[in-house]
Every structure is written in structure tokens, then in C-alpha cells.
């Protein structure tokens, strides 16, 4: 699946986007975040220890418990500050 990173999540990861191929055991957004945290310090810094970072599956807001199967695009970003 394609992963997109925005704002300070993008800066800390060091990438705007990449292809992810998590193992089949990674079923939910929360599990994907845990898997990413273990990929390197940049990911650990981006995702931190709490649930500040938000996610969207195929351009819709999604909660940590939601399943990633079938999604083509996942995005990670800080709480929004538009308007």
C-alpha cells in the first residue's frame, strides 16, 4: 500500500510517501504504526509514544482499531490546523 506523510510527520520520517509491504500479521492501523516504529528512529520520532498522529485510509479519517486490508492508500499526519 502507498503511505503518505504530512507536516511534521513527513519531516520526522524524512519522506513524503513510500510503498509499504507489512507482514500479514499487521491487521490494523495501530499495528501498522507499531510496525513502522520498529523500522527506525525516524519512524519512532514521527509516531512518538502516544496517539497524537492521525490516520486516513483511502482519504477518509480512520481510527487506530480500523483494519488496513483492502486499502490502497494510508496517510499519517498531525491534528489538523486549517481554517
Amino acid at each position, binding site marked *: 500500500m502507498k503511505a503518505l506523510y504530512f507536516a511534521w510527520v513527513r519531516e520526522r520520517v524524512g519522506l513524503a510517501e513510500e510503498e509499504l509491504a507489512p507482514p500479514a500479521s499487521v491487521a490494523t492501523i495501530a499495528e501498522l504504526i507499531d510496525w513502522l516504529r520498529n523500522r527506525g528512529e525516524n519512524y519512532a520520532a514521527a509516531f512518538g509514544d502516544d496517539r497524537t498522529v492521525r490516520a486516513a485510509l483511502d482519504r477518509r479519517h480512520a481510527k487506530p482499531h480500523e483494519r488496513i486490508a483492502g486499502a490502497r492508500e494510508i496517510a499519517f499526519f*498531525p491534528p489538523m490546523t486549517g*481554517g
Partner: protein
Amino acid sequence: MRILRLQKEPFELSAEIASLTAGRDVGALVTFTGLCRHEGRLLGLEIEHYPDMAAAEIARVVEEACGRWPLDGVLVIHRYGLIRPGEPIVLVATTSRHRGEAFAAAEFLMDYLKTRAPFWKREHTRAGLGEWVGAREEDAQAAEKWGS
């Protein structure tokens, strides 16, 4: 009539609202414009966004507003890129037969856009790009008051 736009360029309020009212039998028009503040130090705000989701999310929020109130028209324009102090960032305009629903829908749209539309502001100062603006708890509370 629904007009939703994401754009880099500034916009002109009077020209934008004319498209909502021209030739239409509208009783109430409410507009909200969000502006970039100077705060004594800013050269501007740099707004990053997630283009495809921003368009989709704004459309969903507008759909929700149209389901809650009988609106004749909705206009939402949100800018991205570098925005100078004094320039507009966002415009929400609603039209309806009477003022109550236009006021309520405009406030709802702004409260929802603040917490759901994927835009992120960053301060632009003389030293270059600075801090990311943090989300405000007041904005989350404002959105929650409308229920889900």
C-alpha cells in the same frame, strides 16, 4: 448550489459571494472569512495540505451541513501555500431563506473544517520556515458540540 475550491491565490469576497446570490431568490447570506494574523512577527503562514483528501473531506462536511439545514447555497474556499498577514485563508458562505439556518450552517462548517479538513499551518518568519502551528483544544470542543 455548491462551490468548493482549493487554491493558492487570494480571493475577493464580493466576487465570490456574487456567484451565490446573482439571479437567486435568497433571503439570508452569511459569510465567514478567516485571515492570516501578523502577531507582530510573522511574514506569513505556509499551509500544507493533502489535496485529494481535502477536497473529499470538505465535500463530506458540506453534504453533512446540507442534510442538517435547508440551505440554498454553500461556498467553501480554502487556500494553501504561502499566505501573507492580512490575506484571507478560508471563506465559508451559506445562503438560505432565513438567517437562522445560514448562521448555524456557517458555524458548523467552520467548526468541522477546522478539525477534519487536512491542512497544516506553519509559521513563516524572517528566519525562514518555523514552528508548525499546534491544534487548539477549543477547536476540538467546538466541533464536538454538534454531535456526530
